[in-house]
């Protein structure tokens, strides 16, 4: 493992080892505006020919201050900020935050809302994995896969838009349940999508899985030992591709994930190809979960029964005095959350996503911290890319599937 660099002194660190005279190694600044660093990651790469001898990632170009901003929002308002953290998996972030706050409030979420949350979280996983596959494939030069993936993602975004009015920043989960029930015709649309989706995954696999060029570019590339990954805090599909069967949905079931029948795919090869296989299999498993959720959706209310926290129905608010008062109180000053601190972990598409929420008894969080999977996964970059070719850096980075918004909260 390489030594961590000194922030702000990257170039100096790199040039320190260079000889005064004679051949020097080339230092290549990759990013922050580079087609394949997936956002604004900056990599300082020391090259010997096309082989990488040293690499230092530099993050912070997309710092949003969301964690800090949560401290001046009410608990409900902060949900809309969590969308913006990982903009490819907004509902996973909503879910983790809501679950954390609900744990503090000790709210009981009705089963229908729980199942709906599972369904939408899995849609988010499909959405995120499709973008991952699209960009990963185009990084390696397979141009058409990019557009095929975006065709399916477009349909998912339309499904999101149908129930929330938004394509990406849905902010659909509320503390205590869901914002609204899905509109008429929504289930038919989901069914149509889920019926066709497995054949579309086959289509991607036809183009890639057995393609000798794809295998040549991905097999045996981007190896990093399991111990190193665990030390660095890597989670999610990368660990599963190394043979470690770890998935918060199975290990610490939340939101009634224990009622669903699905597999956690693992591979042991621990390379870019294995990560590709794991994620492709996760696409299929997620589609399976969505189908189960759709077919077995329990009936009942969409929100928890707690008038102090959950907004009343529009109908009641217009007709009952009491409901109107609750509505006014929640909207103007939010709801108070009992003092305490809580940490809740879910399995986001990228890995273990944890929300740490501290409450001082007021209506705004005292502190919200996100343990985001992208940040952990990104730590593996220097170890992974040392000694490989520059073209493999692109494949390795692509296989990590990080979102820079998720890294710089």
């Amino acid at each position, binding site marked *: 493992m390489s030594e961590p660099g000194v922030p702000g002194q990257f170039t100096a660190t790199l040039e320190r080892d260079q000889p005064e005279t004679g051949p020097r190694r080339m230092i290549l600044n990759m990013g922050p505006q580079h087609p394949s660093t997936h956002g604004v990651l900056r990599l300082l790469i020391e090259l010997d020919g096309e082989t990488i001898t040293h690499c230092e990632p530099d993050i912070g170009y997309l710092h949003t201050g969301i964690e800090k901003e949560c401290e001046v929002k009410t608990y409900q308002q902060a949900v809309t900020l969590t969308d913006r953290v990982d903009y490819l998996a907004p509902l996973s972030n909503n879910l983790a935050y809501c679950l954390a706050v609900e744990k503090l409030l000790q709210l009981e979420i009705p089963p229908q809302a729980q199942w709906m949350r599972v369904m939408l979280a899995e849609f988010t996983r499909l959405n995120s994995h499709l973008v991952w596959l699209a960009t990963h494939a185009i990084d390696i*030069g397979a*141009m058409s896969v990019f557009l095929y993936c975006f065709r399916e993602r477009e349909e998912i975004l339309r499904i999101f838009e149908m129930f929330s009015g938004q394509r990406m920043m849905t902010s659909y989960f509320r503390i205590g349940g869901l914002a609204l029930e899905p509109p008429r015709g929504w289930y038919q649309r989901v069914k149509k999508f889920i019926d066709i989706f497995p054949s579309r995954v086959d289509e991607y696999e036809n183009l890639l899985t057995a393609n000798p060029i794809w295998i040549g*570019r991905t097999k045996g590339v981007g190896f990093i030992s399991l111990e190193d990954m665990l030390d660095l805090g890597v989670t999610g599909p990368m660990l599963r591709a190394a043979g470690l069967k770890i998935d918060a949905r199975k290990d610490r079931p939340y939101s009634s994930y224990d009622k669903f029948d699905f597999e956690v795919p693992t591979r042991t090869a621990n390379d870019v190809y294995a990560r590709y296989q794991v994620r492709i299999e996760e696409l299929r498993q997620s589609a399976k979960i969505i189908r189960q959720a759709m077919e077995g959706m329990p009936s009942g209310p969409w929100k928890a029964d707690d008038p102090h926290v959950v907004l009343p129905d529009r109908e009641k608010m217009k007709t009952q005095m009491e409901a109107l008062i609750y509505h006014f109180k929640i909207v103007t000053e939010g709801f108070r959350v009992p003092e305490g601190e809580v940490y809740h972990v879910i399995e986001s598409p990228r890995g273990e996503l944890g929300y740490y929420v501290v409450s001082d008894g007021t209506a705004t969080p005292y502190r919200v911290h996100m343990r985001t999977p992208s940040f952990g996964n990104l730590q593996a970059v220097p170890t992974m890319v040392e000694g490989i070719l520059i073209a493999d*850096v692109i494949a390795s980075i692509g296989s990590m599937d990080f979102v820079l918004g998720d890294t710089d909260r």
Partner: protein
Amino acid sequence: MDAFIVITLIKLALIAFVLLTAVAYLQWVERKVIAHIQVRPGPYRVGPHGLLQPLADVIKLITKEDMMPSYVNKPLYLFAPFIAVAMALLSIAVIPFGPTIEVAGYQTWMQLTDLNIGVLFILAASSMGVYGIALAGWASNNKYALLGGLRSSAQMISYELPLALAVASPLLVSNTLSLRKLVGSQEGGILHWNVIGGGQIVAFLVFVIAAFAETNRVPFDLPEAENELVAGFHTEYSSMKFAAFFMAEYLNMVTVSCMAALLFLGGWDAPWAPEHGSRFVPSIIFVIAGLTALYHGANPPHKLDRYTFTAFGLIFLVLAAIFVAPIVQSWLLPLFWFVAKAGIILFAFIWIRGTLPRFRYDQLMGFAWKFLFPVAMLNLLVTSFLIAWFA
């Protein structure tokens, strides 16, 4: 002698005009074909079905600000795109497009000039083209461009060997270096073409693969691997200088496709004798295309297609009528077969681009030296032994 000069000048202007237009429209075809592979419509706004898009692109590229970074090596930086495009144009000069025609009483070939070493000339010109890219990468004084230039020189030099070896075998079979005589030796239908009659199917495949690498196309487009090297050797080029590289790439594509057609597919020779019906093939194709277009014009998918598809349909039908006219058949038919053969190979270029990922640098080199080179060598040896045996 004066007539010779006039005719040559006319041919020069004609070939340059047709070729440059063809290159511009090749790009349109590429964008359309790839778009349809990728379930999207492609260029659609400029002209009917985006047909004026190449023109708009040219205007855009000419009028764009021409930026030159201050730290470049100026003479070489300016010279590089010139070499690239000049060498690409140069090789077209010796390519024959059809048999002799009679213009105003003068017999002339559909070819600018017939060198008796035409094949060698093309190989030499395309080797010189490497300088354009290598110098562009070096003179830009940019690390990405340098890596792109390095990759490209290594790649093109490596792939020139299998390419030349693959070219050598049909030359042995036909026993000439003149492209015109090469076609002459393959006359008499598909069974006499070098790819089948000469038994050069292996050489043909090696040639096509090496041609992909020579022209920097997917899956061998490493010099300009966008996702690794930003834009490779032309990172620092803008405006028409960028367009020059772009043009050179497409011109090279046209050249190698013509080469493949001439060396392996019998040039302008019809697949079977015109008396037995092959002279009707173009007309039949155009009639089918015209009727399809007319049908879609009658059931337009978009409002304007009522007129555009109908117009296309009528144009196709007129073309079909022209192709059965006996006066022009003698020179139009060979031209058709030549363009069709080169076109199929160009289509393969585009098709592959829509399908395959990209090789890695070391895999690319390994493929050239460990697979293509031995195969081409073996093929050449076997061919020469067989020729010596039977001759």
